[in-house]
């Protein structure tokens, strides 16, 4: 057979001397890691998963809740921060690792060089429903070509792939004999599988017929799609065969892997629940859902930690927020350092600015989104958001919101930051603050209360082409460091301010015997 390319093939048993342990659950993988960590304290772990960002955060939280991992530096690299971590990734190719555990999404699964960095690699491929073939799984397994031990976490698939469009084979047509009708049928078939993602076909507006834009891409899609399904139908066996062909010393089937761990220890290992269960637990703690043994145990734990005198079997949002997944002590210490002038970092300085911007309304502070957006603190945050977000991720484990996209994202991010300094915060949206459009009615009434001061300021602050509004004066006064105007604002103005979307900031009550 003649071919129009040259194949230069190099064979090397890259898995020689290595072992792969097949795991079918996170619990089993964690127990294997924990076991390894007890033998080797400085264990470096690479955890590659096809989960998305939120799930990676859950994974990190789950790892940190295992005592042996609690002091480990666990780093996440995924599509959101891969650019920001560019230098670190370049360093990995040179053998410089900057963490103990690297949790990565598929953004690092193929091609990236990580040789000689890790003692153990965990590949969590969730299920064959995800589009990774055995060849791609092998690519993931050999990211660190020197790593001696691999755990492959994959559920056994007893009934093959599920019956859904993405797992349907596409019959390959006779490409030479394609009619418009055939292209039409093919386009519908592909679009059923890939949703609206394709733009392979276009309808000619004159003839109203389907035309392929790039037949080569359509062919590739069908061939690659079918190949992927055929491989994934037997992904476990295919991966095992491929691993052995690459010189693997030992493959531990699931049963053999299970024999490596003590069943009792596996039973005792507690894994923090994923988000949907956490949300359910949250509702149980609030009394919105019926209490369960787990929620009662958690309630008692929180009550004990916060020294709460619980009379009913429910907590408030504020109490749950104060506990902050058991991070309350760290948060309190951060707050103590902040107010003793020892915070000494950019995040601490930003928190102080936010607290200064928030104005006293009774027992709470309020910072409206409008006022915040007029402040120098916001401008600093907006200009340097990527840096602030990285600092918050690394120092506080704070990830959301990731971008300043929607109107209140900056305020939300500020609220999350304050929580890490032991302040209770709530973002109140337009729906909550101005449900009956009260603001419009209040405007004139509020303006009358401080008309003289407003007019005086407006004279010196005329805007070209637009009217100076009462609001402009309010945000100016509230952002003025030297003013304590909020204390002399009259009732209608105070009410008016509160009709704007805002951040509510409150102190937590001091815990009884907190320092005893």
């Amino acid at each position, binding site marked *: 057979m003649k071919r129009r390319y*040259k194949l230069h093939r190099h064979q090397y048993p890259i898995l020689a001397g290595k072992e792969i342990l097949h795991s079918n659950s996170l619990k089993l993988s964690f127990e294997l890691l924990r076991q390894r960590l007890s033998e080797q304290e400085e264990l470096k772990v690479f955890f590659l998963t096809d989960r998305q960002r939120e799930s990676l955060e859950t994974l990190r939280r789950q790892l940190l809740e295992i005592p042996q991992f609690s002091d480990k530096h666990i780093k996440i690299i995924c599509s959101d921060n891969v650019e920001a971590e*560019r230098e670190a990734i370049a360093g990995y190719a040179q053998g410089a690792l900057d963490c103990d555990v690297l949790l990565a999404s598929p953004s690092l699964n193929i091609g990236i060089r990580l040789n000689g960095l890790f003692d153990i690699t965990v590949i969590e491929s969730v299920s064959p429903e995800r589009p990774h073939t055995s060849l791609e799984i*092998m690519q993931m397994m*050999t990211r660190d070509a*020197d790593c001696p031990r691999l755990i492959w976490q994959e559920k056994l698939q007893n009934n093959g792939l599920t019956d859904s469009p993405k797992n349907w084979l596409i019959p390959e047509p006779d490409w030479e004999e394609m009619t418009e009708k055939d292209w039409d049928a093919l386009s519908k078939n592909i679009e059923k599988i890939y949703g609206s993602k394709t733009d392979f076909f276009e309808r000619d507006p004159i003839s109203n017929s389907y035309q392929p834009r790039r037949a080569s*891409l359509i062919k590739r899609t069908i061939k690659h799609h079918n190949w992927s399904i055929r491989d994934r139908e037997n992904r476990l066996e295919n991966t095992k065969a491929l691993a052995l*062909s690459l010189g693997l010393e030992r493959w531990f089937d699931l049963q053999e892997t299970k024999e490596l761990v003590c069943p009792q220890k596996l039973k005792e290992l507690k894994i923090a629940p994923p988000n949907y269960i956490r949300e359910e637990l949250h509702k149980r703690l609030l009394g919105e859902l019926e209490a369960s043994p787990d929620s009662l145990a958690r309630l008692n734990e929180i009550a004990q930690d916060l020294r709460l005198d619980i009379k009913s079997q429910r907590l408030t949002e504020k109490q749950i927020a104060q506990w902050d997944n058991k991070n309350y002590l760290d948060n309190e210490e951060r707050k103590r350092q902040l107010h003793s002038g020892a915070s000494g970092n950019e995040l601490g300085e930003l928190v102080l600015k936010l607290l200064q911007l928030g104005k006293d309304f009774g027992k709470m502070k309020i910072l409206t989104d409008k006022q915040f957006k007029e402040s120098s603190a916001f401008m600093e945050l907006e200009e340097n958001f990527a840096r602030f977000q990285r600092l918050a991720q690394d120092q506080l484990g704070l990830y959301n919101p990731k971008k300043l996209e929607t109107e209140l994202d900056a305020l939300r991010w500020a609220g999350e930051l304050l929580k890490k300094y032991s302040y209770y915060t709530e973002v109140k949206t337009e729906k909550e603050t101005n449900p009956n459009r009260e603001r419009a009615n209040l405007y004139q009434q509020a303006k009358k209360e401080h008309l003289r001061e407003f007019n005086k300021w407006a004279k010196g602050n005329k805007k070209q082409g637009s009217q100076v509004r009462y609001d402009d004066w309010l945000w100016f006064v509230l952002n003025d460091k030297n003013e304590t105007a909020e204390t002399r604002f009259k009732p209608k103005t105070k009410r008016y301010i509160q009709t704007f979307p805002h951040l509510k900031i409150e102190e937590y009550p001091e815990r009884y015997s907190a320092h005893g």
Partner: protein
Amino acid sequence: MDRHLDIDFKELGRGQHIFQAPQSCNKTGSLKSLEGERVLLICARNSLLAQIKSRLPKTIQTLHYETTIDKQKRYKSKQELGKGETQGLGINYSSLYKLSNTRDSHRDFDYLVIDEPILLWSHSTQYKPDWRNESEYLARIIHTPVVIYLGADFPEHLLEEIDELGKLRGDDPVEDEDDFYIIEENDSYDPDLETLNEQLGWREGW
């Protein structure tokens, strides 16, 4: 056994060349031999491009995007990419359309390198497939004198497509025994490896 490949890509003649070797055999590292040459590197991941540029700054001097001072990505315009101030350019498949129809200057390359084709095959069909990128991709393969594919695996449908592209390029067909050979480490023969492959029938028929 030494797994380190040391390929001089400059010795390759006109045509399509597939280099198949497992991870970490220095396939990509061998691009060092193309320092100072006009090289277009196409990948399906920006993280991969960035790491290659960092490893081989004299081969791949620029990418289709740059990182700003606050570590944000800034994608270059068609005009910027068309200027061709540097010899080696790394670009994501999804930005290939920016190399098309650049009126001011048409940019040609002597070497086209496709790193991890299997990833590119997935990316081009599953991640925002776009006929404009595909058109440029095909044009580059057809018109660049030396095309190099670097990867650990080449399933049969990839090879079929590469073969078809060879027809469009007008490359002469060669017999299997002429175009197929195994690069042995340090020209040494490793009986264990052969036995292993025989036992497992790996890539039977190739």
